[in-house]
């Protein structure tokens, strides 16, 4: 117990060497703002990344077979033959002919009542779910299979429809990653400036410590600790506010009921990454402070 008390007393004495001014200065608030933006950017990147992966997994394993035949009886007969052939094909996990009535309902907003009149030829559709892996090769095999049945049957992989969207989401994800990197650099720069400022304002104390035989590392530790505390406070504040914003936005996205927007979700692993950001921020701040102070002290004899 005496040892613990002594260590505490020693720590308190060390901490008194630099006047305490936490939260009063701008540092914690600047770091809080930067951490808030960093966490949001990281959450966007992780959410979009998850959406792209989910979309890619879904789309890569699915295709639509279209039977483009104006004659209704011929179309229905061709549809049945195509479905039968697909069910027996390798690499096909599921075959689901789309109900023509459902198709008409989906087209009605664009085509009006004409869609259900029967005068307008609407292709028959069959949703095909492929077994995992090698989607491109399987789609190609299905194309050859369907071409053997009729030239009026087309096989369209879903990935082809939404490839540009997936590309956009992926680009946005990389942009978010870039923003996180820039924010980390900016945070480091802010800490360097703050450490320089603190070093300049405590130059007298530092020189006295230096001339008493304090090593550079001993002096740097004083600044490291102080800046780590500021960074910890700022990082936690920024993280908590950002987490609230993410939860609110997540609720709004789910409320849209959109499959596409619903795919933008943050997995638990994503939350773990976000939670690591404040720790990373504190570590970055400590290293930047240490580097700055050691560099400044290096100019003294």
């Amino acid at each position, binding site marked *: 117990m005496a040892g613990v008390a002594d260590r505490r007393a020693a720590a308190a004495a060390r901490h008194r*060497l630099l006047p305490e001014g936490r939260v009063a200065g701008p540092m914690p608030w600047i770091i809080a703002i930067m951490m808030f933006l960093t966490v949001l950017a990281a959450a966007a990147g992780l959410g979009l990344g998850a959406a792209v992966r989910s979309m890619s997994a879904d789309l890569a394993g699915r295709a639509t077979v279209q039977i483009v035949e104006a004659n209704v009886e011929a179309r229905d007969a061709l549809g049945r033959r195509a479905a039968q052939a697909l069910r027996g094909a390798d690499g096909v996990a599921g075959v689901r002919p789309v109900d023509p009535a459902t198709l008409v309902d989906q087209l009605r907003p664009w085509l009006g009542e004409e869609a259900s009149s029967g005068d307008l030829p609407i292709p028959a559709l069959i949703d095909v779910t492929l077994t995992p892996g090698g989607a491109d090769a399987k789609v190609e095999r299905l194309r050859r299979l369907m071409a053997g049945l009729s030239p009026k049957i087309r096989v369209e992989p879903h990935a082809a429809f939404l490839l540009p969207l997936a590309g956009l989401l992926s680009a946005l994800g990389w942009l978010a990653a870039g923003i996180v990197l820039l924010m980390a650099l900016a945070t480091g720069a802010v800490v360097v400036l703050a450490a320089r400022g603190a070093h300049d304002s405590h130059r007298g104390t530092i020189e006295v410590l230096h001339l*008493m035989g304090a090593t550079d590392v001993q002096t740097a530790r004083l600044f490291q600790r102080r800046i780590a505390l500021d960074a910890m406070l700022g990082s936690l504040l920024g993280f908590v506010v950002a987490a609230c914003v993410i939860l609110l936005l997540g609720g709004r996205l789910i409320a849209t009921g959109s499959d596409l927007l619903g795919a933008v979700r943050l997995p638990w692993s994503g939350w773990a990454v976000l939670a690591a950001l404040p720790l990373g921020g504190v570590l970055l701040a400590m290293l930047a402070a240490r580097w700055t102070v050691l560099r400044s002290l290096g100019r003294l004899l």
Partner: protein
Amino acid sequence: MRLARLRGPGFTAGRPLCHGCMSGAEGSARAPVFTIMSAIVQFENVGLRYGLDSETLSDVSFSLHGGGFYFLTGASGAGKTSLLKLLYLAQRPSRGVIRLFGEDVVTLPRKRLPGFRRRIGVVFQDFRLVPHLSVYDNIALPLRVAGMEEAEVDAPVSEMLNWVGLGDRGQARPATLSGGEQQRVAIARAVIARPEILVADEPTGNVDADMASRLMTLFEALNRLGTTVVVATHDLPLMGQVTGAQMMRLDKGRLADPTGALRYPPRSRGSA
């Protein structure tokens, strides 16, 4: 880090911390015990130049022996403070060799200098007390820098506070002290870790004659315990107070006597 760390290479082994035996009256009443040991400071043709100006110090050569008491005097601008800065390792010379405790500190790697600085106590001309620390914490600073256990800090600091007559001002901030009190805090801070060399730059410049005399008695008492004392001062009567002290006089950056320290005993040690 324990007290043992206070004793770097060259620290006198087994020398007890004996702050209580440094009271001025006791020190002056005691029979003088000056044991002059081998040279612990050697300057050889040292020159110091700031920027492109002419040399502030030129061809300075002298030796200080362990246990000696030295005054450094000279007109304002003669280079006293610059010489002391070289001595307490705040500055590197532009040329020449400086040996401290037998090692050439000019070429010594920078990382080894803190160990040497811990063996030198400095009383700055402007005190340089840390304004946001209490008197107690200011005096404790060298011990904490040296890594002394916190439980061991209190006794010597309290004793030192009493020694300089500030026992009841431990929690005061330096700004609330008079010039003389600040001076005494600076002296207490300089000597608390029992340095082998005590360097004082105009230590009596801010105090009245009575206090100056008392401070000099304190330095003398410390010197009797084996600390080499170097005091820069203009005050000739004060120099006369310390029997057996030696004087170095600087004139325009050069030692007035090129052979080194001049013996300047206004009264011989025995006739004090």
